């Protein structure tokens, strides 16, 4: 299905670069980090709706004991796809959307360092997602859990786990490429004066996440390759009868899987660290400590993977070591939370929707963090592992944490991206419904787990007395669904409004608010020169000797005071005077072509060698055209 989009890209005028930067087809050839960010966002949100629907089906099946609404096969496919979708096709790309759109703006750059590579990453990710989902129609979706434990994932007779392996490999390529791209962007593309310790925390978290990706993805890549070879070519990596070890897969998976947790949550932490200061009207408390704790979390995050394997029988030495490292990682996490509290302290807090989501993030993430520490208590974890207690824990981290943060980010930057405000009323409704629904759904799961409900079971007997809280949980999940609908309506409605938005509606502190909303294609007419952290704020406000803060002459009204400040509010960036002077990279056909080859290659591995060759040819053709096409129009 991926190849479907190729004909549109037939390299007709070979090596001549497309010009159009507007219109439908321009989306396929764009290399503009902002457009690519929007593409990431829309795609990820679409998958969010699908993954959420899968979750609802699971909840319906579990609403009452001994239900037969879904049979075992479908149920296993659903919880597997729910996990894969939410982790790889929702939270990761949604974070990528924010990184793509905002990192260049926040550091005062005109684009990422390798714009076409950036486009390639997006298309590869999209095709990976479509590839995995095509499995529903081609003999069954993955059914071995998102963690795909061997040997079960190897001996499963359906094609599902082969789709899983190939799909995640393609997604992995996409993420690795964009990780290198964005890391170099942050290091090398900063505006004059934007030293590392003047960067917004969100940019810092972006940098850390890209490095986590760069160093953790290769490990799962090898794990997936070994799984794939076992399934396709009869190798024995995880074949016990030949002396293979199933535990090797667990190491390779969790060596990636744990850093992945921080890959998912650090972006949200960065977002919250941007939103809190703006609406508390104070700078972030203990900037350096928030940054360093973020780095520490990323670093220690590589040393805790075996706490997912306490019950495997690694022996007391390993369990002790990983219990300790796991407890240690709680410390920098705590530092972050206390600094956020410090930011709120003595602030002048405005309860806008972004702020509500950020406060909700802190409140919920604390719960997830605390239950996390309880898992580090190994003997206690012997009871909790693989029960709904764990499910509750990581949903408090990844939903109460990541998703709340990302929603806050959407409300916060929506006006910047689309030049229109989301309705605050609908936003608040969205927040409260989601908060209540979320706690109704996942709070009871703590109890269920302790009462003896294991994970990944299709039903449970009446006798275990699990019925009540399961029903509560199911009802809660539908409340969440309603809150998401409210967001959808809000989003659609916002496009009914005219595009009338000043550059800096929130009276914010960072560079992206210094240019028009939406920003012109080239972001800044003149690359700003940065003099301090929260540079924009310092251009709007000054401090008297007494430490009183007073607006500077120019404004504080929210008008940025850079050259090319908020001048172009209404119009489209491309269309104005200064614009033509600035030379931006031309769109290109080749990223999408190069990416389109990958799923074709994947189908080839599944359904017959010829397609492998075709896929390789398409991809190589893409890259050669890429290398040879002129750099400008």
């Amino acid at each position: 299905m991926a190849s479907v989009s190729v004909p549109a890209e037939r390299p007709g005028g070979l090596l001549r670069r497309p010009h159009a930067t507007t219109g439908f087809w321009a989306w396929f050839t764009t290399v503009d980090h902002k457009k690519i960010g929007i593409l990431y966002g829309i795609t990820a949100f679409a998958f969010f709706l699908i993954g959420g629907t899968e979750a609802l089906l699971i909840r319906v099946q579990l609403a009452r004991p001994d239900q037969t609404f879904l049979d075992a096969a479908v149920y296993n496919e659903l919880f597997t796809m729910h996990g894969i979708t939410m982790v790889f096709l929702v939270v990761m790309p949604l974070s990528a959307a924010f990184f793509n759109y905002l990192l260049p703006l926040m550091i005062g750059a005109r684009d990422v360092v390798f714009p076409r590579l950036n486009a390639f990453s997006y298309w590869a990710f999209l095709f990976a997602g479509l590839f995995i989902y095509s499995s529903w129609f081609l003999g069954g979706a993955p059914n071995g859990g998102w963690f795909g434990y061997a040997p079960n994932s190897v001996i499963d007779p359906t094609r599902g786990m082969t789709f899983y392996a190939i799909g995640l490999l393609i997604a992995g390529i996409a993420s690795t490429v964009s990780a290198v791209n964005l890391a170099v962007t942050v290091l090398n593309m900063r505006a004059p004066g934007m030293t590392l310790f003047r960067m917004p925390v969100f940019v810092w978290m972006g940098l850390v996440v890209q490095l986590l990706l760069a160093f953790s993805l290769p490990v799962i890549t090898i794990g997936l390759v070994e799984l794939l070879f076992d399934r396709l070519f009869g190798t024995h990596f995880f074949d016990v009868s030949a002396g293979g070890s199933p535990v090797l897969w667990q190491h390779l998976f969790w060596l990636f899987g744990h850093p992945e947790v921080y890959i998912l949550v650090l972006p949200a932490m960065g977002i919250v660290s941007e939103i809190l200061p703006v609406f508390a009207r104070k700078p972030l408390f203990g900037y350096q400590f928030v940054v360093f704790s973020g780095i520490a979390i990323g670093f220690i995050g590589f040393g805790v993977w075996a706490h997912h394997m306490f019950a495997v029988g690694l022996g007391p030495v390993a369990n002790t070591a990983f219990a300790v490292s796991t407890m240690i990682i709680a410390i920098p996490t705590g530092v972050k939370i206390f600094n956020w509290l410090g930011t709120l302290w003595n602030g002048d807090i405005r309860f806008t929707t972004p702020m509500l989501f950020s406060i909700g993030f802190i409140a919920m993430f604390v719960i997830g963090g605390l239950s996390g520490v309880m898992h580090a208590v190994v003997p206690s974890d012997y009871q909790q592992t693989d029960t709904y207690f764990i499910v509750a824990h990581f949903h408090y981290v990844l939903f109460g944490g990541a998703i709340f943060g990302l929603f806050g980010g959407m409300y916060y930057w929506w006006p910047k991206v689309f030049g229109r405000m989301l309705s605050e009323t609908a936003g608040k409704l969205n927040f409260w419904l989601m908060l209540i629904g979320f706690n109704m759904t996942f709070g009871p799961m703590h109890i269920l787990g302790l009462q003896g409900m294991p994970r990944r079971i299709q039903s449970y007997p009446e006798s275990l007395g699990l019925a009540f809280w399961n029903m509560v949980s199911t009802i809660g999940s539908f409340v969440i669904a309603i809150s998401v609908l409210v967001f959808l309506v809000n989003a659609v409605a916002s496009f009914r409004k005219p595009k009338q938005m000043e550059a800096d509606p929130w009276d914010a502190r960072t560079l992206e608010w210094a240019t028009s909303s939406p920003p012109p294609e080239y972001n800044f007419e003149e690359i700003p020169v940065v003099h301090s952290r929260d540079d924009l704020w310092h251009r709007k406000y000054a401090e008297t000797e007494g430490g009183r803060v007073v607006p500077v002459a120019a404004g504080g009204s929210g008008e940025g005071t850079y050259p090319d400040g908020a001048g172009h509010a209404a119009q489209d960036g491309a269309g104005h005077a200064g614009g033509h002077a600035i030379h931006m990279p031309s769109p290109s056909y080749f990223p999408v072509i190069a990416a389109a080859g990958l799923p074709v290659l994947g189908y080839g591995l599944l359904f017959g060698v010829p397609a492998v060759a075709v896929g390789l040819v398409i991809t190589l053709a893409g890259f050669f055209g890429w290398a040879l096409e002129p750099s400008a129009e």
Partner: protein
Amino acid sequence: MRRRTVVVLGLVALALVAAACAPNATQSALEPKGPEAQKSYDLFVPVFWVAVVIFFVVEGLLVLFVIRYRHRKNATRIPPQVHGNTRLEIAWTILPAVILAGVAVPTIATIWDLAAKPTGDILEVNVLGHQWWWEFDYPDQQILTANELHIPTGKPVYLTLCAVGFGYGAPVPSEGGPPAPSACQGPPDQPPPAAIGASVIHSFWVPELAGTQDVVPNQTNHLTIQADVPGVYEGQCKEFCGLSHTYMKFTVVAHTPDDFQRWVAEQQAPTPVPEPGSDAAAGLEVFLSRLPSGGGCTDCHAIAGIEGPNGQPILNNGGPNLTHLMSRQCFRGCTLATTDANLRRWMEDPSAIEAGSFMPDYGLSAEQLDQLVAFLNTLE
């Protein structure tokens, strides 16, 4: 804000209450019934309360600040731009570290405690994880049974766990014969059990008696369980192990030492021979015969003391050993009661009951089914 906190706090409070006094929670980690489970529980409770305290402190501050420092109508004050405070930073780095250290010490002690093999008077049992049922092998008692683990109270039971694939048969004990080798090691002339068939990872969990121990192919794990009071304790496979993972349950039946000895004696008693001409005898014929489809019960199931058509001993090949089947309360991963109706339904079409079942549908006639049920009923 208040509303949210109420929801949150309410849930946490409920979590403890509801969990502590939940109705017939027969598989609950919160009701330890033996020293091993107690050790986990004794760590869980204090850590939980520490967490609760921290929770109230942090969320309390959050709510306090949010209320205290909310923006008030037409207040024009811009708060002082405070950038941080190193003393505070040091404080809230060290304080958690100290608390965690306090948690770490007993944690580590207990890890090693639980890992140690119990000494003195213990019972040893091999636990074999199949897709999707549990096999229990008592090497010293020469008993091989399934889905029901019988143990004496007040005595540590040291389990040796291994995962085996379809086609592996634990060596059948035969009365009078030489003691069968330990099932997890397998017969000397065979490769180790895990290396046979397509075994997958399972996880042995009976929360009221002990924490989880994974059952991993090509790896022999150990777990100590102990029950202080007689009773039936529910257990379940906790690691996703394929299509019918959900239905891989088991029970641990704890007897007083005397009752346990009685049970052992029962299990060791020779299999009664059905009197000729009875339905049961006909059922035994069906059991031993090659069925139209070419297969037969004895391909997988053995019964101590019953020999094959031409006198050869029957090996268990992946199916539960049926010796004294009717002394068990349940079968099929302990999700069906051993009633005539259930046995009949099961033999009639296993995969109708269990997705992906390894037990074939031999298209048995109604008469054959009746005879088989009659025969199985003699296996008390």
